[in-house]
């Protein structure tokens, strides 16, 4: 089913998610277009991580519907596998495979999951490592790299399977301040190349520079959604304003 170019690549319709009795997401509606860059921000516990983890089924939503590139997400493995190869994810804790070298980390999914040719995958992986400016570390193990380098490897690894959408779950929150900028640089570069990106982040400078839309979540609901200019230039919503004041005062 070929979706038309102006349709949404990700569509969330009345999505709800419960953890036991606690409602993490309440009636979330969100349409994301191809090539759009969306930043999701909000206080902790607002459900922002839960939201993007529902998109690649790391969490299972309880109510509503999620469509990724026309495919409706539910429990069946076949659909989930198809979605996961179209949606790449970068984690706060990097989650690189410590027993594999950097280049092997990148080649893991293409060679072992999709059966691609090893030599071609290696070439492609080296190309990606070049793009994130870390090609000289290809034969090192993750433990030998700094946090910023590890996160860039993680981004390259997610890109290696050629996803249509990239999800970022607070990618710079676990990094020392001096390494945050190298990762944000990489993400901005990726944005300029036209990738559809959904980023949960507190980095408002990044949002201002790159986002097409800034979404503010609180207590499991989308409270505000605006272009970055409108969002940062004095807000209608008091909760969003309070959060912004808190964050920007650093």
């Amino acid at each position, binding site marked *: 089913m070929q979706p038309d170019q102006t349709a949404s690549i990700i569509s969330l319709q009345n999505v709800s998610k419960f953890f036991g009795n606690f409602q993490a997401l309440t009636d979330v509606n969100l349409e994301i277009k191809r090539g759009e860059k969306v930043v999701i921000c909000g206080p902790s516990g607002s459900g922002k991580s839960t939201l993007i983890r529902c998109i*690649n*089924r*790391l969490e299972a939503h309880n109510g509503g519907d999620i469509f990724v590139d026309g495919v409706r997400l539910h429990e069946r*493995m076949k659909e989930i*596998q198809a979605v*996961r*190869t179209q*949606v*790449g*994810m970068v*984690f706060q*804790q990097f*989650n*690189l*495979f*410590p*027993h594999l070298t950097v280049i092997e980390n990148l080649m*893991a*999914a293409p060679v*072992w*999951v*999709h059966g691609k040719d090893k030599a071609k995958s290696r070439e492609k992986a080296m190309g990606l490592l070049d793009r994130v400016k870390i090609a000289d570390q290809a034969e090192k*193990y993750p*433990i*030998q790299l700094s946090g910023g380098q590890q996160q860039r490897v993680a981004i390259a*690894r*997610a890109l290696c*399977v050629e996803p249509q959408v990239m999800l970022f779950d607070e990618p710079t929150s676990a990094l020392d301040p001096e390494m945050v900028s190298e990762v944000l640089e990489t993400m901005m570069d990726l944005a300029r190349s036209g990738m559809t990106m959904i980023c949960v982040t507190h980095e408002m400078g990044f949002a201002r520079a790159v986002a097409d839309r800034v979404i503010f979540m609180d207590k499991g609901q989308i409270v505000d959604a605006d272009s970055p200019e409108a969002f940062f230039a004095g807000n209608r919503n008091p909760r969003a304003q309070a959060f912004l004041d808190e964050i920007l005062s650093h």
Partner: protein
Amino acid sequence: MFADTVVAENRLKNPLFLAGIALAIAAVIWLLNPTVLMQRLLEQEDDIGQMQRVIVSGAVAGAIAINLLVLSLLPRMVQRVLVYAELFAIVLAFAAVFDLDFAFIVEKLPYMVSQGVVTTLYVSAISIVIAFCVAMLAAIAKLSTSELARSVATFYTSVFRGLPLLMQLFLIYLGLPQLGFNITALPAGIIALSLYYGAYMTEIFRAGIMSIPQGQWEASRALGFGFGRTMMRIILPQAVPVVVPPTGNMFIAILKDSSLVSVIGIWELMYLSRNLGSATFNHMEMLLTAAAIYWILTIILEIGQSKLERHYSRSSSR
């Protein structure tokens, strides 16, 4: 172990402490009253008098205390070599007390090795392999989402860790034939060892798999890995270094517990050690020889284990 920066003072250098240690050791020796050893020491056939008992206890204790003091003052590597040497000398002295007939040992040794050691080795090896496979399956079953698999595996580990190995051996060897399975001693022994140690190793593997951070599973799933590939390529390779020390323990235990199958008549090392010497009353010769052989085999396994541990620590060191 956390080596604190504070160096503990050597209390043995304190003469009062040293005297106290010597007194304690003397009291223990006096209470134990090892008359045969004391007679050997004084080279006399007559009984040990009260005065002699006190003097020997005191002298031996004093020698031990001074030995400890001298050891504590030497450099670390020298200490290590000397302590091993002294403990080994004690073991040899223990053996020497029995006035062993070495000619007898030399005569029986080839048969002990060709029949006893070989049988012990292949019973242990086959059991290790089967236990390993059973444990891998049961560990994954216990961690799976299938309630059937989980219940069966939990029942298995409960039953086979719940009964003594010797009892399981008898139940299998004597019970199965009554149900119509004509099982001989060798398969019965191997089955009992495999199932018993398989249950223990199940728990070790399960703990090893659970020790891998959740993030590894999430990253694998996000990249499109299914359960099987995640286990084979990502989780198990990381779990192996974690389980090597406790599994090495289990292998050593299987080697030694293979001695239990002697009670159902398998001619492995333990059986031979009790039977070869009984006709001529040379029990200690055979037992001590078998003991030495078991120890040597175990040391070989320990060396193998530490080589494996060093191999796996490569990718986790900067």
